[in-house]
């Protein structure tokens, strides 16, 4: 297993600094061309390419396991028939599906009837699906592997493990560090702003954005950074003045005790980041009242859009936003409950994509969904249980993504011997790995192809990363 060694780190961090500094960069490159990965680093590390370079990833975690075979559904008679025969009472009616302008031969699809926004995005090439993606250790996982328990992700079908693996990208270990955190370790130095993390969380502390040398900056999904009420170094009021001085003094001390130190450091970093963040955020783009729907998902997307609108004032060239949208564990009442939630997701994605067009950032901001797993095709009365491979959704501008397409192979939803992917109760072996899904995004974001295995140690089992090509192809360039 390959980890980011200290040497790797210092190398990457050094390059990051070099790129930003600009001066003497080529001289430096020429002198150490013999170092592995150097060219790739120079190509991918596009901080050298110009001041306007900005890329952001917005990762939406659908926590609990989205039943994504009811999000993206076959709509032609043959395949809809297979779907409804397997899903029985969980099947959406064929007529209710919102048709997508995409087909493979006679095979057509529709989205869930509550996802009008996503249909609009998809049919205008601003959304795409990644089909049957999931946690895998190699590309040849079979039913036999499942039956024998060999070469499988640990804790299949278990929330805690699978939600972790979708954040770490490492399905054979239990780790507390995620791939966005490790990206920040590698290329976070591209950001002129080194006081506020490259990783902004709207859902607090999380694995996805925790790296070896970096951690998320958590903001309030309904209004940005959280500061201390009454904290004001310039106040004339004696109460706030004494309190502010005392807090500054507490946070300014060096604490030997690691628990005290950790407790204080979080506060100190938060306080400092707030001051800087808030100053910029006051000039955030004023979206019109109707631009974002009045629900928590759209409100969180709005906060992200506002943050992106002040990226230059804040000094960011790379940002990863993370939000958790929970409540997808529909063991009960799937049809009723999922409809409202998919509707909120769909509306939020549409609102956000429109906002990115307003800000002229739609071709540099990629939104992606992750989820613990898909759910059993078979019902357990009116709900479904934890399963495996499922459908993910990406949105972005038409010059950024190959939208209007279903990438990967949408699997057969039949059951039994006829379907080599179905292991039990309608659980499907993924045909695309998280390595491929995440690797493509990470490479676009600026991680050199040769260094992807520092983040995703199993990636070599899936494909050989190389500059200028993507394993799935949902990103254009």
């Amino acid at each position, binding site marked *: 297993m390959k980890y980011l060694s200290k040497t790797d780190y210092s190398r990457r961090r050094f390059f990051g600094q070099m790129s930003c500094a600009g001066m003497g960069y080529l001289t430096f490159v020429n002198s150490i061309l013999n170092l592995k990965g150097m060219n790739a680093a120079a190509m991918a590390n596009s901080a050298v390419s110009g001041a306007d370079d900005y890329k952001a990833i917005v990762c939406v975690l659908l*926590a609990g396991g989205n039943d994504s075979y009811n999000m993206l559904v076959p709509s032609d008679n043959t395949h809809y028939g297979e779907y409804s025969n*397997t899903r*029985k*009472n969980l099947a959406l009616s064929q007529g209710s599906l919102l048709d997508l302008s995409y087909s493979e031969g006679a095979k057509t699809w529709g989205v869930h009837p509550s996802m009008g926004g996503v249909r609009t995005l998809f049919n205008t090439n601003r959304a795409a699906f990644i089909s049957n993606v999931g946690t895998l250790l190699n590309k040849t996982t079979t039913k036999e592997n499942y039956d024998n*328990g060999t070469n499988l992700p640990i804790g*299949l*079908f278990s*929330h*805690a493990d699978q939600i972790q693996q979708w954040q770490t990208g490492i399905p054979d270990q239990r780790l*507390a560090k995620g791939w966005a955190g490790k990206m920040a370790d590698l290329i976070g130095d591209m950001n002129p702003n080194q006081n506020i993390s490259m990783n902004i969380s709207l859902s*607090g*502390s999380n694995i996805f954005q*925790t790296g070896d040398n*970096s*951690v*998320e*900056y*958590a*903001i309030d999904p309904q209004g940005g950074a*959280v*500061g*201390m009420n*009454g904290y004001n170094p310039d106040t004339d009021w*004696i*109460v706030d*003045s*004494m*309190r502010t001085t*005392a*807090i500054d003094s*507490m946070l300014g*001390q060096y604490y*030997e*005790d*690691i*628990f*005290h130190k*950790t*407790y204080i*450091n*979080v*506060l100190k*970093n*938060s*306080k400092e980041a707030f001051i800087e963040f808030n100053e910029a955020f006051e000039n955030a783009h004023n979206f019109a009242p109707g631009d974002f729907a009045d629900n928590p998902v759209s409100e969180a997307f709005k906060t992200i859009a506002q943050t992106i609108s002040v990226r230059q004032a804040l000094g960011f060239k790379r940002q990863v936003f993370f939000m*958790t949208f*929970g*409540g997808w564990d529909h*063991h*009960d009442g799937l049809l009723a409950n999922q409809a409202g939630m998919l509707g909120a997701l769909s509306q939020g994605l549409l609102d956000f994509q429109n906002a990115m067009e307003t800000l002229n950032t739609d071709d540099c901001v990629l939104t992606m969904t992750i989820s613990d797993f898909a759910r059993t*095709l*078979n*019902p*357990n*009365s009116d709900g479904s*249980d*934890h399963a495996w491979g499922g459908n993910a959704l990406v949105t972005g501008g038409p010059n950024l993504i190959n939208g209007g397409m279903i990438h990967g192979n949408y699997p057969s939803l039949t*059951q039994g011997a006829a379907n080599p992917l179905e292991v*039990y109760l*309608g659980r499907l072996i993924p045909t695309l790995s998280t390595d491929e899904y995440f690797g493509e995004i990470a490479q676009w974001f600026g991680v050199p192809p040769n260094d992807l295995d520092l983040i995703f140690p199993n990636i070599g089992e899936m494909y050989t990363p190389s500059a200028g090509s993507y394993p799935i192809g949902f990103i254009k360039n």
Partner: protein
Amino acid sequence: MRKRFLPFYSDPRYCYNFPLMLKYIPTLAVAWIVLPLQLDSQNYLGAGNSDGISVTASSSHLESIWIDSANAIKTIDGSGMLADYFDVCRFLNQATLGFDSSHVNSILNSGLPPMQAYEAWIDAQLAGNADYLTPELNTIFEQIKDSLSAGGVHDTLLPRRPGWQEFNYAWWSVHSFTEDLLRHRVATAFSEIFVISRFSDLEGYGDGLADYYDMFLCNAFGNYRELIDSITLHACMGHYLSHANNPKTVDSLNQHPDENYAREIMQLFSIGLYELNQDGSRKTQGGEEIPTYTNADINGLAKVLTGLGYGGTLPHLTSDPPHWGMGLWEADVTVPMIMYDVDLPPIQPWWDPDEDQHEDGPKTFLGHTITPNASGMVELNEALDVIADHPNVGPFISRRLIQRLVKSNPSPQYISDVAGVFNNDGTGTRGNLGAVVKAILLHDEARDPSYQLDAANSRLQEPLWRYTHFLRNVEKYNPNGLYWNNNYFVFENIHQDIFASPSVFNFFLPDDTPHGDIQDQGLVAPEFKLHDARSSVGYINASHQWTVPWGQLMNTWLGDYMDHTEVDWVIDDLLPLAEDSETYLNWLDKHILGGRMTDRTRFIIRSALNGFNPDYHWHNHAENRVRVGMHLALLSADYSITR
């Protein structure tokens, strides 16, 4: 490092006074050489008083607060250091959600040697009466409905049952004054292990939340086997993890048993993912850890769990008898679920003969095949026996309880000792939770003062319990004698409340650890999940609200219908103490920090207090000192970190 002290504390006479001896160390230069401690983290009341200014000033204060006043002589001779007092504070900080000096003094004045005094206190708590929420909830709910009626709300629009807010009113009302301290401490620990959450339909079922909590109170010192039985059959758990109305396999419908509870009862409530040694470490086979179960085991257990449904209805909501598939809305959620299984002669005449929802046929899990029985409930009991008898349960549950009560990183020996008590309480009984709690609190690692020397023995106090501890130590006032709290403002800031976790995985998992030094040392500190850039500042803002602007401690959303439902902080008794900064600092250290105030924190707060100068007439220096001093004490690392 601890071994250095063995000659001291191995003698029981010294053991109890050990903190006192530690507090002496800085005054003995020679001790610095002999004991190269990281005294940065040590607390010693009085050590910051040597500048003499405020110490002498305090001698002019009232006799009644003499014990709280600093005095140079007392500082030097140790009588002002309250070492015994702080040792009891440490114990009560582990055993309660908040206590005041009366509890400390009752232990100090018991006349027993320390360990016996602690044991006697635990025994008395074990033998005491449970202070249940449901009676309080019912009273509160009636009172609210009366107020709504009086305020013009039509009968048909009155709430049909209490919701999460009324549950919170009841909890805070009870907890503001209860003497049933240890049982509530254990119940809240259970609430973070056997998790249900109001972030589900349960937000509308305050009656169910209260009954579920009362079930914890009832079983806090009972037997694990009965506890897991009550949890499994509780309507709220049945709804939350969806094994209520869980039907058997129907091939024609492609229908299979719901696997949710079958998985989580094993993963989270009993045995966990890997086979464990008694000390909590994972067993290995050929270098590999050994999974406790596979998905086939989950499927086997899921079959056993089919057929459970709600067992009672509320007559004011429905005239139907309980029946299969009935909704939560009409259920009496305080009645355990029943098995809808007509293989047995119906014990209820209204059972529909078609309601045979329990799966027939063989059921195997964890290497055990359930003895086929006509009664699904008999099969379920056998399955719960299999789970409760699994050797993992002792170390699994012990570690979690130790983490909630004492420390984040118990040694393997600590886990093993407690698990041993779980396995056999000395009378041959397995799963005696009262004995387990006692073993946790009386263990060397909890009681021996030397463990306070090493940061590795720390725990970040959960923010909610920082709040409750503070509340128990200040004078609260409501003109109507209502101590209700919906806690919403605090929750919004600290992201913690009872039954308010985002998922069944609680606010944090036992192995969670924050990025940085703690993780680098291979330690865990799960509570730091509640201390991120947002919630850490949120806690400061919440404590600011309690103390500085108006001192509003608790509140409700009933202001449109009821007068004066907010609870205020009465600071009158503290005002004379605050005339002298040092005296108030000593009070804060004693009552809020339990002796954990470090020199540097003392220095910082003192500077702030002294900024409120009595010579200025345009502000109330004593009130400002009381408020700001309390606020700073609450947000200090000293207060939040315990060991």
